[in-house]
Structures are given as structure tokens and as C-alpha cells.
């Protein structure tokens, strides 16, 4: 790794001093650049390639792993690049510059009653590029899926410093390889996203959220199977406790949001109530609009800043077995957020020996049931690998990285299996 002075001197051929700064502590780089044009980004990549400088594409910095050390050279933020949304309301399509914040994009789209279907955490500061690079999602995944279901086209600055396009601005397209899929969730290891085109959706006329408390998570998960059988316009679901539970206490709260036309939704509330009534729920409440906003904010926008934070994916039908296995070991201070229809669970636990033992058990359970775990945060002294369970196709992924970034300039060592 080169000294910040050496790199800084090289960067001055492209950037003014106002565009270069020392990186914040949480970043794995020494310096951060804030280009004013895409041309500067392209030149930066060429410079990096020529001088073996490593780059870390930076979004809003809201979803950073706890790297704990500086092992890369320069973070690249596109936030300052002047950018306009290219929105075609009649086509329900918009092309969005990567550096725009999610909330500003949604605000503009909402003027035409449209939205990007994703609802990731930290909408005020997350950038569109960051959301796509981390494949970030929220409870609306239930209805709309994830980024892979709504991204139509991307433009990426590749390892040669050239803008390359994949996909098209149409809702259907099968021309060429769908490289968008590779870039989504790649954590910036294949290039720097310049802009992304989304398939949009109309904002539902009405949203209603119901909250039901349960004594333990496996009983709540069981309700998911019942919900599938009944025709309901469900938009979001999430089961939470601990820091993610706005009600506090020790219960597990199942949040379910219905969305659609007002006339259609109202009778569905009763239908949903009656299903919950037959489950082992302790209670059920229809939230007011203000309560609903406040509750979803806690559920979706809370992001612990220390300790262990892990995303777990298991085969859906084994969620109940998963909870049966880990429930006896859960202690106070541990928090869970469950997306029951996707088999995804977030666990946060503090930094102590008991937590390490608990996590070992969790990893063992996942290995038995089939699934994966990714740490989004780890204590500095932790010995866990960020991805303790690796996919069998990892060798092919490494070859892809080698093919698209042969010099290893884009965030090397920050992805699955050391990619």
C-alpha cells in the first residue's frame, strides 16, 4: 500500500484539492475523492490501473462492513456529480445517476405517483449506486422482490476506465448477457456504477399495517404459511424483536402491510384479522398512519453500529427448524429481524464470548439445514470470516473477477472468498 502523500500527488493530476480528502475512520481507504464529472472517474480508473492504486466505490457509507483497518487506497464517491433523473412516467421507467440519494429520487418520482419498488434502510443517505452494489432491500421484498427484479439497465465504469452498458431502457430485453445481475450485490468489485435504469411501480393508493405480537418466533413464522393460502394484497412483512421492535418488550411482533386501492384494502383488513386470530398471536392491532410510519422506520431504518450483525439465509421451509434450534440460546440483548417469506433473518448480538458461542451454533445450524451467513458487522477482534459458508461456484466467481478486473483495482479482498 502506498503512502497517502504519494497517492495524493498522483490524484492531483485529475482532482482539485477540494475534491480530495482523508478518508473517514470507518472506511478501509486512506483517501476519498469526490469527482465532479464522470470523466474524472474514468481518468481515475485509468490512473489506478497504471499505478496499481486500489479503489473503493463508495455510496452513502450506510452499509459499511467493520473493516477495522486501512488496506485500500482511495474511496470514490459520486455524490457531488451534478445529476438529473431521467424519468419517463408514461413508460414507468427512470434512469438514475448512481450518486443520487434514494429519498431524493423517490421524492421526484412520487410527483407522478410512481416509485422504485425497493425500500432499503437509510433512505435519506443511501445512494442508488450503493443500494444496487449491496443489493439492499426491505420488507417490500414480499411483493416486489429485490434489485434483480427491477433493474433494467446499468452503465458501469469498467477496469479500463470506459463506460459500459448492459440491458436496455425497456421492461423486456434479452440482448446480450445480463451483466446487470453480476453488478447487483457485487460490492463494487467489478467496477463503479455510473447510472441505473429501473422499472417503476405506481404508488399504492392506500397502505394499512397490522401488528401482531407472538411469544416466540417459530409461532410467528408459522403464520406466514397461512398468509400464503389466503388472497390478500400484502406488500410487506417482517417479524422483529429487540432493537428492531418498536413496541419494545420481549415479544416478537409480526408486521404486515396491505397495499392497493382503498376500496379493495378495507375488506381485506378484516380477513387478515381473522387469520391472525386463529394463530397463537397474543394480540393484533391496526396501526394508524402515523404509528405505521414510526413503526416501519424502526423496523427498517435501525442499523446497529457495533457488535455482531449477521444476515442469514436459509431454505424457507427450514425457518421453523432454525428457530427451534437457536431459540433456547437467545438471551437478552440479542435482536432479530425476519423476512419470513424469503427465509432471511438478521441477527444482532453484542460483543462478548457468549455471543461468539451463540454464533458458532448458528453457523452450525445453517450448515446442517442448508443456507448462508454474511456478517455485516464484526467486532474488531473477532476471528469469524465475513462469509463463513462459501458457495461451491466460488472458483467461477474468482475467474469472473479476474476477467473483468485483471489488475485487481476495484475493492480487492472485500468480497466473498477474498475476491
Amino acid at each position: 500500500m502506498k503512502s497517502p502523500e504519494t497517492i495524493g500527488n498522483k490524484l492531483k493530476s485529475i482532482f482539485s484539492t477540494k475534491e480530495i480528502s482523508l478518508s473517514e475512520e470507518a472506511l478501509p481507504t486512506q483517501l476519498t475523492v469526490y469527482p465532479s464529472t464522470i470523466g474524472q472517474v474514468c481518468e481515475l480508473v485509468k490512473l489506478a490501473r497504471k499505478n496499481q492504486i486500489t479503489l473503493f466505490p463508495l455510496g452513502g457509507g450506510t452499509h459499511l462492513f467493520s473493516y477495522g483497518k486501512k488496506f485500500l487506497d482511495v474511496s470514490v464517491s459520486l455524490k457531488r456529480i451534478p445529476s438529473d433523473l431521467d424519468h419517463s412516467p408514461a413508460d414507468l421507467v427512470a434512469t438514475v445517476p448512481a450518486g443520487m440519494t434514494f429519498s431524493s429520487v423517490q421524492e421526484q418520482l412520487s410527483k407522478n405517483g410512481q416509485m422504485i419498488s425497493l425500500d432499503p434502510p437509510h433512505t435519506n443517505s443511501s445512494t442508488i449506486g450503493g443500494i444496487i452494489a449491496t443489493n439492499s432491500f426491505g420488507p417490500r421484498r414480499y411483493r416486489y422482490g429485490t434489485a434483480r427484479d427491477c433493474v433494467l439497465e446499468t452503465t458501469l465504469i469498467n477496469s479500463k476506465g470506459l463506460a459500459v452498458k448492459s440491458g436496455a431502457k425497456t421492461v423486456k430485453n434479452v440482448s446480450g448477457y445480463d451483466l446487470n445481475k453480476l453488478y447487483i450485490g457485487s460490492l463494487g468489485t467489478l467496477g463503479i456504477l455510473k447510472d441505473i435504469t429501473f422499472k417503476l411501480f405506481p404508488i399504492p393508493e392506500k397502505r394499512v399495517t397490522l401488528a401482531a405480537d407472538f411469544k416466540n418466533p417459530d409461532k410467528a413464522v408459522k403464520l406466514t404459511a397461512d398468509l400464503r393460502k389466503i388472497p390478500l394484497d400484502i406488500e410487506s412483512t417482517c417479524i422483529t424483536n429487540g432493537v428492531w421492535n418498536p413496541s419494545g418488550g420481549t415479544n416478537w411482533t409480526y408486521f404486515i402491510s396491505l397495499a392497493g386501492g382503498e376500496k379493495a384494502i378495507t375488506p381485506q383488513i378484516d380477513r387478515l384479522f381473522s387469520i391472525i386470530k386463529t394463530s397463537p398471536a397474543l394480540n393484533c392491532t391496526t396501526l394508524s398512519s402515523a404509528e405505521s410510519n414510526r413503526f416501519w422506520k424502526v423496523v427498517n431504518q435501525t442499523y446497529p453500529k457495533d457488535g455482531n450483525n449477521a444476515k442469514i439465509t436459509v431454505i424457507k421451509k427450514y425457518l421453523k427448524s432454525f428457530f427451534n434450534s437457536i431459540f433456547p440460546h437467545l438471551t437478552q440483548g440479542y435482536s432479530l429481524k425476519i423476512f419470513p417469506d424469503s427465509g432471511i433473518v438478521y441477527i444482532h448480538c453484542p460483543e462478548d464470548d457468549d455471543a461468539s458461542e451463540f454464533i458458532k451454533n448458528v453457523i452450525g445450524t445453517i450448515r446442517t439445514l442448508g443456507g448462508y451467513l454474511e456478517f455485516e458487522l464484526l467486532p474488531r477482534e473477532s476471528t469469524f470470516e465475513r462469509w463463513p459458508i462459501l458457495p461451491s461456484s466460488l472458483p467461477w466467481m474468482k475467474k469472473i473477477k479476474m476477467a473483468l478486473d485483471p489488475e485487481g483495482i476495484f475493492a480487492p479482498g472485500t468480497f466473498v472468498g477474498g475476491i
Partner: protein
Amino acid sequence: MKKTFSLIEQLQQLLGKDRVISNPDELIVFECDALTLHKNIPEGVVLPESTEEVSAITKLCSEHKTPFLARASGTGLSGGATPAKGGVIIQLSRMNQILEIDYEDEIAVVQPGVINLHLTEAVSSRNYHFAPDPSSEKACTIGGNVAENAGGPHTLKYGVTTNHVLGMKTVSPTGEIVEIGGRCEDSPGYDLTGLFTGSEGTLGIITEVTVKLTRNPESIKTLLVVFNSVEDASISVSNIIAEGIIPAAMELIDQLAISAVEQHLNVGYPTDATAVLLIEIDGVATSLDKEMKRIQQICLSNRAMIAQIARTDKEREDLWRGRKETVGALGKITPAYYTNDGVVPRSKLPEILADTIRIGNKYGLRIGNICHAGDGNIHPLILYNPDDKNEVENAIKVSEEIIKKCIELGGSITGEHGVGTEKSEYLGMMFSEEDQEQMKKIRDVFNPDYLLNPDKIFPTQSKRNKINLKKTKKLKGWL
């Protein structure tokens, strides 16, 4: 004296003579897929029954440096399963088992040769279906659907094949068996499942697929809307989408196609109509009435003559039978047809349909238009006589002009049929050389010797000069 066995002999040793076709008369069947304009006879066709056999076949072909490709029903319309450079066709139709259906997980694991509709039929009693529904669903296979990222009428609401695939087992050109994705909704690393879907059989041979099953909607309403002009019908489609209404399906059929359907199927389309829209909405019963009423209003405000909701399941089935068999019906009124597949932004539908008619008239060829109108995905069927060289050339010119027009309007060269051999020379209309280079690097990772399904997707050197490639120097404008 030592005798070196030929590839065909070695394949016969591997599979037995009854599972290797090498008789030239029998090979003719495999000279093309449903794109009959491009033909080439393979040297042999093999019929494996397991992933391991596919692996052994690809190893042998690679050792012999012989091109090979996977094929199933051969219903593809872009030459994806045409042996462009000869070689061996790995015919997957015997790998046609549904290996597992798991309702709790809402998934099925299938072999590539399973017919699309057979999966829906297998799960329909439990109120599920497989959402991608190409018009060829009775014949096309799920392996082919994945390779081409197939669509269909209901992809307007439910998405295309890639939105319904969780994982797959594939065989690399050198015989390595690779499992990608899986049964979990998210798996770490690059999304190879998304990459392989739609890669047209150029990255590996799919031998197992894990797909999502979709719950049937509680209620379905199907509307037949009759228009006096294609323009009014297409404006209605654009207006419906612009209003934020996303039906489950929204199909447009023009007069020529209507008359062919009625002549041969008699499903109840009005033969005096210039165009009809088939619009379907589905979901929770209480949600549908208001939406359907608004759709009817929009159509009537655009001079629709009739906007009639199907009253019975039989009526609905007939309307869909007509739509799904339109291509076959048109085939009965012409010696040959060329199915085009272009896409435009949905608001440009009126413009592209007007241009399609104009282009057909210019070359004196009849065109039957059917469209997945809600997606902006057009399928003009260009009718021609294959024995008339002039008509063949004109059919190709008509198709090319339509595709160029789609690109001018901000669209794509293919919405769901794939690039194949048909449109490989058009790829440069959409993608710069550097864009293509990025894709080729991925191809070279999985298919470095380019023996697996060669001469597909990317322009071949010989024809390259004909196409106006976008130049990467466009970037200069940004610097």
C-alpha cells in the same frame, strides 16, 4: 495398426448406438430451430439421460475440438439451437423429469427437457403455476426458457423467466459439473443464476433447474376490446400503462392475425375488427372491479367499439387459445412466415406499429401483428414465399428495418426470443464495442475455446462491416 476412433464412434461407445444419430437423412431434422431462415446440418446428435452423460459428452467434444450445443424442443425463434458451425447437438429431450415439487418452499426442481406447460399442469391441483408462459408453452422446455430468458403474455405482471429461477446445475464445456444459486432466495457472491439465464446456451449446459412456483390468483377478469384502428388500440395500451395500471397481460392482435385465427380456430374474435386487445387483470377479487372499469373507460375514450369481459371460463379460455395459437393460424394462410421480436418503450407502441405497417407495405409483404403490448414487445409476423428469392430477401429487409426503428425509438433488438444467429449482426446497434467486449470476457471465462454454441449472440467477423457499430468514443462527450 492402431485405429483412432472418431468422435461419433466414441459417443456411440459412451451412449450406445441407439442414442447417437449420425445418419444424414435423420440429421436434417436438426438443421435449424423455429427460425427456418438459418440452417446447418450437424455431424451428430446425442441423446443423454443424465448430467453425468452430458459431462462425458462435452469432455469428448472438447477433446476433439468439435463444436457442440444443447437443444431441447427447438421452438426457439432466433437460431439459438441451430448448429451454426456443425458439430454435435446434445439433445436434452430425454431429460424430461420433474425431479421434485416442494409446496412448502414453493419451488420445483426440473430437468431441462420438461415441457413448460407440463410443470403448470403438475402443480395446478394445488393452486400453483409456473409463471413464464411463452405462446409455445405446450412444446417449449424449461431448459430452453432459461437459456433464452423466455417471456410470454403474463410476464407483464409476473416477470420473465429470470425472475422465477433460483438455481441450476450446469455442465461446463470441459465437463465440469457446476451448481449455481440454489434453493435459498439469496446466496453469496456474484449472481451466476441471473447471468446464465438468457445466455443462450453459450456459458454452459443446464441439466437441472430450480424454479419458483407462483400461487394462482383468487380472481381473473379477461377483457376483449375491439377497435377500428391499430393506432387507437396501441394508444389505449400506452394510456393504461401511463395511468399506473399494470394488468397481468395486455395483448394486441391485428386484423390479419384475427382473420387467420377465426378462419382456423373460431374462438370468437370479431372478424370485422382492425385490432383487438386482450387485457387480463388478476388478484384479490375485491381489487379488480375498479381497475377493470377504468381500463374499459380508457379504451372507450380511445374509440373502442366493444369492451366485453369474458363471462365464463370457457370464453376466457377461447380468447387465450386464439392468442396463443395465432402464430400457428397465420402459418396456415402462408407458405412461410418470419417472426420478428422487437421492443420499444411502452409509450412508443403507436409509433412502432404504424411504422411496421408502413415498412411491410414498402416491400409489398403482408404482416400479421401480435404484440405483448403492455411490455412494448412487438411480434410482427412477416409472411413470405420461401421459394421466391426476392420475397425471402425482402422479409429479411423488413425485419431489419423494424428492428432499426425499435432502436431509434429507444428500444431493444430482442425482447424474449434472444439474439442467436438471427440478430448477432444487430448487437452493435445497441452495444458499443467496449460493451460487447465486457460480455465476451464473461463468455471466455466459461467457454474459452468457444466450442459451446459458437457464432451466437456476437457479430461474426465476416458480416461485421455491414452493421454500424456504436463507437466508444461517445465517452469523449462526457470528459
